[in-house]
């Protein structure tokens, strides 16, 4: 049985193609990351969580109080 001879240039060329592709995929991730950074999901999530805890304080107020506050805001 003849053992197949490895050609180093084949490995090098296919490796170079894979590295090129890898760079481009990372470029795509960077592009997506920059898009996501505009939306700031982490800050939005933190704001919403802290907003909800403030809301729960408000819920302890009576319905009339909340209605009065809302009316004042809409009048402004």
């Amino acid at each position, binding site marked *: 049985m003849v053992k197949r001879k*490895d*050609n180093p240039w*084949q*490995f090098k*060329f*296919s*490796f170079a*193609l*894979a590295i*090129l*592709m*890898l760079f*481009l*995929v990372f*470029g*795509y*991730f960077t*592009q*997506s*990351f920059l*898009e*996501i950074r505009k*939306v700031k*999901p*982490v800050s*939005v*999530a933190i704001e*919403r*969580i802290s907003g909800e805890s403030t809301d729960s304080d408000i819920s302890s107020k009576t319905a009339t109080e909340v209605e009065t506050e809302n009316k004042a805001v809409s009048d402004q």
Partner: protein
Amino acid sequence: MASTTNETTSHWGRIIEALAWASLLVAFIIGQIAAQTDYEALLKQAMPDVKLTRSQANRDLPVVYRMESADTKSTDAVVISEGVGYGGPLVVGIKARRTDDGARLNEILVLSHKETPAFMQRINQSNFFRQFAGKSVTDNFIVGDDIDAVSGATVSSAGFTAAIREAVHLGAVQHLNLPRTWTEPGWDIGINEVILVALFALAFFGAYRRDKPAKYARMVVMVGTLVFVGFYANASLNLGNIAGIFMGYIPSPKQHPMWWIMIAGALGSVVILGRNIYCHQICPFKVVQDLLQKISGVKLRIKPEVQRQSRALIFFLSWIALMLIFLSAHPALGSYEPFAMMFSLEGLGIQWYILPASILGSLFVPSFWCRLFCPVGLYLNEIVRMRRAVRERLFGGGGKPPSATGETIKVEKE
């Protein structure tokens, strides 16, 4: 000594795996909280000069806002509704005006969507939303009936139409007290669904037999999947589809049976039969790679060490992709595969370079993308591996364990 080193490596491997899962969970929770839609903010962004007053008639969707501005009458309203497209949820604002015979649609505003940019480009270029202007709220709004879908973006077209239909019809009943004179949409099963089922059936037939009819079946599937799944429907499975399922972005089977057939065929074949039929026969990008191989006739080998590491590489790439998808709640932002672009020739930014690079790689290295970069193939093969492991544990040995090298596609002898 060697066993101690292996134990330490496996210990660190488990820690890294646990950290990866934990970070994905955190990203998922953050993304879901941040993605909760603020309809009023979206509307204000789309119509900054218009004063909007929310109708108190219904707290849930569709939300109705009365529009007040110098140039619009008080009879104008904008109705907000949500639907599910190919990439996930989409939010539309429907501007409507009350008339003597009920109400008519003025304009459709796409307030938010998670569709692949290539699909949205198609929809915008074909002026899909213009066909809604002037329609009565009592019209059917059914794709294939009074609405034309955009070829190559059929699921997105159906998603937008469903969102508009549900909002408009509910608004007609609740706000205008109009009788239900429209036709309700039924199961949208047509020739496309029949073709896809036939392709899967032929693929199963071709996978289980080795005779001449099976060879012809495989050839029919190859041509059919390239033309139909690739260029016509542009419905290749990608990482975004898988992530979308976890985020609950599942379209209705009544309106998008093709999506269900594709998922059921791909997952069903691996879970029930233990065969990855999708990657080997249905994936149109695999066909493109095989054709490129035939054209070039060059079959360069990949270094065995590189091939062995490819599984870890794909897991790492898909971890980054999933982090981006979960954080943004936008499947298209992490799907790095060139499939959608390949079959629509529409893309954005660096996607224009990923496609030619993958084509170049496939010209010289057999199944270049599948073996080194494809997350869908790796995941489907992992399910096959897990299925075999479970089967072996339950019923004892038998069957060769699948390759753990990440070589998702059988490659001809190089």
